[in-house]
Structure formats: C-alpha cells, structure tokens
C-alpha cells in the first residue's frame, strides 16, 4: 500500500470542468498552483470531500472515495484552512482551539497545544472573540486550530490571499516553521509565485481544470515547457546552505548541490543554516569565457541543456546545468543566436542577483 495521495476526479459544472489524475507525495508541501479559475480550489475541496466529484481518492492506504464509497469530510483525517477567516464567531480564540482539541483524531497533550500556540504567536489572543482580532491573528488562530485537530493531512486554500502584504510577510515565517516542525503532509493552494518559491517541495500546475505539470519543485520550475505564463517570475529555486560569512562586505556564501556556491547579500542566517535561493531567469546571463572584468561576482561553469523561446517573440529561455542543478537564463533571441548556443555546450553563467526566500 502506498503512502501517497492518489486522486482521480471528474467534475462538470457546465462552463467549468475538472479533470485530474495525480499522485501527491505524503510528505512535505505540495502546492497546487494556477491562475484564478484554474480549478485548484475545486480540486482541494474534492480532496476534502466538501465537493462531490466522480472519481477515486486514496490517502495513505485509506480509500476516501471510489465508485461505491464516499467517506464524509468529518470522517477523513484532515483539516482545512480556508481562504478567509473561518473562526466560529460565537467562540473565543481559545474556544475555537478547544473545539478542535475535543474532536481531534489523536490525543493532544497540554505541552503540544502550548507549543502550537507559541509557534503561531497567538498566546495574547486566546481570551478574545474573532471580531476583536486582526486578519493576520485570525488566520494564525485558524492554522493553530487546524493543527490541534491532529490531522494526517493539512489542506490550505490560499491562506494568505485575504491579507495585505505586511500581514503575509508576518505569517509566512510561521508557515515555514510549521513545515520544518511537523511531519505533516500539506496541500497548499496559491496563485502566488513567491509563495511557491518559499514553501513548495512538490508543484502541481493547474490550468482549465487540469493538472498540466507536476513534479518536484525544481524539476517543474526548470521545465522549458512550463505551461503557465510566469513572465518576470520565471526562474528556479535551489536549496543550499550558508557556508561562509564575509563580515567586511556583508556577504554570505551559499553552497548548493554539486559543490558550487554563490555569494549573496548577508541574510543574517548563521553558518550551516539550510536556505532556499530563488534565481530568476532574468537575472542569469551566459558568457563563453569567465568574465573577470564584470561587476557580476557569481560565475559558475555550466553546460547548456536546452534552448527555447520565451513568451515574448524577441526573448529566448535557456536551461543550463550547473553540476546537477538546473538554472534558467533569459536573453534576447539575438544574443542566443550570437553565442550559437547548442545543447551540451559548456560555458559560464553569471548570476546577477538572487534572493533568499
């Protein structure tokens, strides 16, 4: 029996059709990514059993739905964080948490609930009613409530979408904490490339009710034929480690798979910290020789893997491999022509900037 989640759904709502058949890993964060109307929330609701589609659904060996059975939502060991505040208005924040604890799928120790309350920083909200909380606090209480019901699967439907930029930045670190703190598979719906870069381990791209691409984050993002238009957000996310800190220039050296490393602005992380670096295609350029006289510090030897066209007819997208790490580079078609790029060719990549996410 597989531990993964396998879903095959067909749903016809007239103008909208959902048609998916996919397997998601039972660990880490799987992101359902797509523009609005792509069916990502509908898919999540089908997984939760809040929407009834034809098909089959198994999770960790349990059949949640097949042609004869449909396990109702409340009997599925999952919890769900909704897009907008979903706290029960007649209960205080503590009452909302108690509601989950009383019905949790496994015993919740006092220490555990204290940990979760501390992790999400909601200790000061407990005696308040939902309307007395800020949007960010409400959503943090909702996340804590979902965790306290001790699910085996956590579903999150754009939990940050109803919040302003500042509140998003306030909650994202909690979500990252959650990821590293609990061994709980999460399916996370979003339309934000930034949230994908920060949280996703596994990525499913949704379009017109279908899963048009899926795979591990970097396999998917570095695909030349990634089916969603990302525009300026095209690029890859690589996992690395802070290797060295240069206090004079306020720089960090981030090492990644294959022994290569790049220098980035100091992020305040200690040596040895695992970090994610997002490198956008527009910040990567290619050179046939190592340019010693360039302002760009990060030169890495690479091999061309594929050359393709970008969304704009004047632009080309080139996939290169640095060791076994793929990078995307965007340039004009004219530049690509002049460098006579061909798969297998070795050259140098210059990374102008990259951001820790």
């Amino acid at each position, binding site marked *: 029996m597989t531990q993964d989640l396998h879903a095959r759904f067909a749903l016809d709502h007239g103008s909208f059709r959902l048609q998916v058949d996919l397997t998601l890993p039972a660990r880490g964060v799987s992101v359902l990514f797509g523009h609005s109307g792509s069916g990502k929330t509908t898919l999540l609701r089908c997984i*939760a*059993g*809040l929407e009834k589609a034809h098909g089959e659904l198994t999770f960790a060996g349990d059949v949640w739905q097949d042609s004869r059975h449909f396990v*109702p*939502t*409340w009997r599925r060991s*999952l*919890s*769900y964080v*909704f897009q907008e505040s*979903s706290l*029960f*208005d*007649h209960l205080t924040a503590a009452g909302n948490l108690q*509601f*989950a604890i009383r*019905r*949790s*799928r496994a015993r919740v120790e006092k220490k555990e609930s204290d940990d979760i309350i501390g992790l999400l920083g909601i200790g000061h909200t407990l005696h308040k009613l939902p309307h007395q909380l800020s949007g960010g606090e409400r959503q943090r209480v909702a996340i804590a*409530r*979902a965790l306290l*019901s001790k699910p085996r699967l956590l*579903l999150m439907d754009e939990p940050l979408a109803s919040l302003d930029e500042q509140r998003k930045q306030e909650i994202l670190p909690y979500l990252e904490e959650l990821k590293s703190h609990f061994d709980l598979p999460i399916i996370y719906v979003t339309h934000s490339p930034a949230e994908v870069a920060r949280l996703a381990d596994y990525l499913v791209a949704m379009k017109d009710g279908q899963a048009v691409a899926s795979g591990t984050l970097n396999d998917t993002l570095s695909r030349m034929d990634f089916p969603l238009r990302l525009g300026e957000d095209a690029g890859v996310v690589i996992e690395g480690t802070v290797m060295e800190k240069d206090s004079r220039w306020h720089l960090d050296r981030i090492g990644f798979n294959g022994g290569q490393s790049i220098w980035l602005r100091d992020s305040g992380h200690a040596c040895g910290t695992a970090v994610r670096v997002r490198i956008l295609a527009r910040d990567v350029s290619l050179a046939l020789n190592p340019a010693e006289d360039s302002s760009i510090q990060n030169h890495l030897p690479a091999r061309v893997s594929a050359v393709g066209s970008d969304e704009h007819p004047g632009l080309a997208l080139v996939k290169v491999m640095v060791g076994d790490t793929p990078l995307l580079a965007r340039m004009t078609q004219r530049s690509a022509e002049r460098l006579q790029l061909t798969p297998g060719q070795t050259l140098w990549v210059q990374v102008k900037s990259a951001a820790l996410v």
Partner: protein
Amino acid sequence: MALSAADLTAVWLTLKLATIVTLLLLLIATPIAWWLANTHSRAKGPVSAVVALPLVLPPSVLGFYLLLALGPNGPVGQLTTALGIGTLPFTFAGLVVASVIYSLPFVVQPIQNALEALGKRPREVAATLGAGPWDTFFNVILPLARPGFYTAAVLGFAHTVGEFGVVLMIGGNIPGATRVISVQIYDHVEALEYTEAHILSIGMVVFSFIVLMLLYGFRRQQGGRKLL
C-alpha cells in the same frame, strides 16, 4: 376590577396552547427551514409557498378546510378515529394542530433566514475539524443562529396567542377546552360586557407591545439582521 374565573380560565388556556404550539413548532419548523435553506430542489418554490399560505389566506378558509380534513369524514379524521383518538375538531388537541399550521410561517421564516445568513461555511469548517452532523448542529449552527430561533419562538408564541378565526372555526367556544382569550373577548363584546372586554383587550395590547419591544431591543443588541 378583577378577572373573573372564566377570564382566568381563558388566559390559562391561551398560555398553555401557545406554549405547546411554540415547542411543537420549533421541532417541526427547524427541519423544514433547514431543508429550505439548503436545497437546490425544484420543490423549494412550491414548499415555500405552502408554508407561507397561512400568511395570506383568511383564517376562516384555513379553518374551514381543517374542519373538513379533521372531521369524521375527512382523511385525517378517519385516521384519528381508526387510531382510537376520536375526531379532533372542538377539542384542545384540534386547536393545537390548527395553531401549528396557522403559525408555521412565523417560525419557519426567521429560522430559514438565520440559516441562510450563516451559509455553509461554518458547517464545512466543523466537518474539517471532525465534527459530525448532529455535533455540528448543536454546537455550531444552533449557537450561531440563536437570534433567529429566539425570534421564531417569540413570533410563534405571540401569533398563537393572537389568533381568532381559526380557533372559532376549529375549536368553537368550549370553556376550558377551546375558549381562548380572543374568543372570550368576543363573547364579552357580544354580551355588551365592555368593561370585561377592556380588561382582557388592554392586557393583550400590553402583552403584544412588550413582546415586540423585547424582540426589537434584542435584535438591536445582537446587531443582527432583520428577521421579520
């Protein structure tokens, strides 16, 4: 100036009737309101219309058909006779049945409005936290829709206290069994006992005024939606 024994009997009978009818109505109206608030069925329109009929029909029309249905030759009457209960018209039980039907829309609609205002989100949230349907109803829906249930109970009670036409048709005028306040007032007026009629009538005015004032005051306190 005090209430006569007959007046007191009428007051007591009225309160007993309204209490029983209100409790029955809360039990009957809640599933109907739940179904109406959630269904996408084509039957929703016709069912809503049937529930609302007592709002627009003259009480005498309603009473007339109830009399036929509950009477010895009516379908319900034959059933109750076969069950050994006898026929219901001109009994307290018949009055309860008639009042339940007559006051039904006043109880269904506030509950339905409250449930519709809640939407399905609270139920979905409860389900994703492992709460079953009954658990969800008693611990989430009922507390969240409480103002709607209060409004429904108060309106159902007050409307039953105030009915006259249906009572006369189905209950007649039997002291201690079917002679409620409104009928008693009618009798006093018929007998030109205006003072006695005044006492009971003023009582009704004050009662109704206080009930409505409490209802509106409560609603403002709740900051709630209009449920009437």
